[in-house]
């Protein structure tokens, strides 16, 4: 595809957008998996959040 004399600037713009957004997507997916794994490990160890104070009845 011939993009004229400014082709380098056009391709560079699209490349930067693609690389940065792909990097953000990859990091978010990896971070989500990491947090889920940590949560599963805690769950496997039987860790539960402390129950809150009893609610007022009536």
């Amino acid at each position, binding site marked *: *595809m011939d*993009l*004229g*004399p*400014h*082709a380098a*600037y*056009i391709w*560079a*713009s*699209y490349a*930067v*957008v693609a690389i*940065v*957004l792909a990097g*953000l*997507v990859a990091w*978010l*997916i990896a*971070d*989500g998996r990491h*947090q*889920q794994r*940590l*949560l599963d490990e*805690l769950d496997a*160890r039987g*860790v*539960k*959040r*402390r129950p809150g104070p009893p609610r007022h009845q009536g």
Partner: protein
Amino acid sequence: MQTLTQRLANPTRFMALSGQLLPWISVLAGVLIAVGLYMGFTAPLDYQQGHAAKIMYVHVPAAWLAMLGYAVVAGSSFGLLVFRHPLADVSAKSAALVGAVFTFLCLVTGSLWGRPMWGAFWTWDPRLTSVLILFFLYLGLIALRSSIDDEGLAANLTAVLGIVGIVILPVIRFSVNWNSIHQAPSVSRLGAPTIHPSLLWPLLAMAAGMLALFVALHIKAMRNEILRRRVKALRLAEVQAATSLAEAAE
């Protein structure tokens, strides 16, 4: 009758609903961006800028989303400070990261357009400078939060900065009127857009695709943050339980 925001105030309910929506929004983003790219690269040449106008199809949506991101930060900060909405801080923190990325892309693609069109990568023009300040505001929000260990205090202080910083949005909007060489709005203006439909439709398709991507990234970042806070709460509970056991044994 609960409003949508009240129903979503429960993180567990938010996780369930967002887990169902996220794949669809991601697919929508991919399809719209693919259509926008095809339309953009087959659009007729701009009579002044030639092929370089194609940079606008990523630069303009990035600029809009940079500002939208900050509006989400400020709105969420307001939701935290005024309504103490349980997910408001999660939303503000997530939007700051995504907004900073789109602001960075706006600045870089603007620079790459400016070199062939203006003859310089950068000039201290009111529009460019105000967007750079927006980028520094995002970095300031992220740095402030990460510098404070107390999560509640960090949320409150970041929210105050987030609300005060919204002053940058009208400054960016009207900066083109202040002796700026930057092009005045040609789409988001009162009356009809001044851009030809053959160039406008690819831009709108890319903007819609990148907006869907922004929403997907924001939701994903929020989901990660909710998981991170659950992990932190469980670790704290584990330590507290161990401490209680040790004290009982003594």
